[in-house]
């Protein structure tokens, strides 16, 4: 999986800025995607490309349980969010709904990755290669249940 990085150098990117409250009434995925990250980055929708990754600090996706958040990001083309840590509901919404991969990275990796870097993520090796400078980082492996749900393609396809 290869993609370009859109980096936010901040912690606690909450679901209110990922998709602001007034749009909660919208359930059309394409319409929602037009407002992704509008709270802090109104140009996001016009500059994001299919396959891009978001890189951010700790507690990504905190706040409201709105599934609109991973839906809006994935409909824009975001395949993975690489963050130092995640809030729990955003994390499980991303995985159970098979919208995008929430990948935990350490603080040092977060600081090493720059905006516009091109990354390759290798899930089998739990490894991230920075194709822009050939640096190699490790990612925190998924727990067993998360790994299985991701492989199945979401909770509804997962067999207990």
């Amino acid at each position, binding site marked *: 999986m290869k993609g370009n990085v859109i980096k936010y150098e901040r912690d606690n990117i909450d679901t209110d800025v990922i998709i602001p409250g007034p749009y909660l*009434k919208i*359930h059309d995925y394409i319409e929602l995607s037009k407002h992704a990250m509008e709270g802090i980055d109104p140009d996001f929708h016009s500059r994001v490309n299919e396959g891009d990754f978001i890189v951010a600090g700790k507690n990504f996706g*905190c706040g*409201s349980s709105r599934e609109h958040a991973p839906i809006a990001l994935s409909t824009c083309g975001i395949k993975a969010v690489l963050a130092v840590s995640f*809030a729990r509901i955003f994390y499980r919404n991303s995985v159970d709904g098979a919208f995008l991969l929430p990948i935990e990275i350490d603080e040092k990796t977060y600081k090493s990755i720059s905006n516009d870097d091109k990354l390759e993520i290798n899930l089998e090796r739990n490894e991230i290669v920075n194709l822009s400078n050939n640096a190699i980082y490790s990612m925190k492996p998924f727990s067993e*249940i998360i790994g299985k749900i991701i492989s199945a393609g979401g909770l509804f396809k997962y067999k*207990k």
Partner: protein
Amino acid sequence: MNITEKILARASGKNSVAPDDVVFAKVDKVMLHDVSGPGVIKVFDKLNNQGIDTSKLHDPSKVWVAEDHFVPTAEKISAENIVKLSEFTKNYGIKKHFKYGMGQYGICHTLSHEEALVSPGEVYVGGDSHTNTTGALGAFACGLGHTDVAYVLLNGEIWFKVPETFYFKLNGELSEHVMAKDFILKIIGDIGTDGATYNTMQFGGSGIDRMSIESRLTLTNMTTEAGAKNGIIEADEKTIDYLHQRGATNLKQIKSDEDANYSKIFEYEASEIEPTVAKPFSPENITVVRDLSSIELDKAYIGSCTGAKYEDLLAAAKVLKGKQVKIRTEVLPAAISIYKKAMQDGLLQIFIDAGAMVGPPTCGACCGAHMGVLAKDEICISTTNRNFPGRMGHIDSQTYLASPLVAAASAITGKITDPRDLN
């Protein structure tokens, strides 16, 4: 085992569970509202396209539905969502649908306790992050997204990783001008908005024993703001009485074992808690009210599942009685049952006489949706639970989170005010 572990063990058919175990727990109650409901309908549509049968729910009697975020309907799309929600409950045989303008309705988390919809020891999930609120009744109460709620509706169970539990012990009694809101803001300030991520926040001690059920609900409500999976308080006689008065029967009390495990214990002296405010733009950004007495305000908002229960309105009314507000002040009781009691007891009269506006139950401006949202640069003191950028309106508006006592005192002076400093 502690209470959360006991509930999850029972619900997953195991003798015991420990933190990090993954279990599929049978769910006793499920809640949807006018945002998560249409979200679930969308998931059902997707499942149908994949050939997955969504024609029947696992058990419609376990499901209840609230209309709260965009009601009274804000515009065309939210009106259509409310219509969709009614079709959904009709088609699937869901009887407990609290419709606005048709008797009791209100904010979902408020209905959970006002209507005794959840009992101690139950596993309760809802399509809203503040589902944690209901854990104050001694239940495992946890918020989920649309896909997970859809899964519960169709399968009657859902996976959980058994959380570690942080135990917050409160000794003594909060002073007269201090409310549960001040205590939970203090805790969030201490541990941070990710301080309890994936974990349980359990509350106990003599200070909790003395607290009313409504105050306890304020604590568990904002465990969400510390990232917790659930907040929980063991049911006691007070809980049982509270639920009996609201029609519940066959209630049990589940307590943690004497040797239960807690991964961290935090201890607080109630006498040391002061009126506290969370400054923009995070619930962890706290300080004592007196540090902010120069902050001029545009608005006071007394509403939401956090800060518009009967007791919250009573606290605000005590401060506002015979006074005049200096800034725009909005009071929105969290459910019709609370609205009615506030009316019967003269609280609404006090608010209106003071110049405040009394509105209908709604999540409305708390989530920046409608009915009282903030303009650019407006500054609001609010009894709600979040103050992220743009949460209550314009991205450049500001929200200070406070107790109903502090919000009411500030409404009178137009500045952030400690209730002790009112003349």
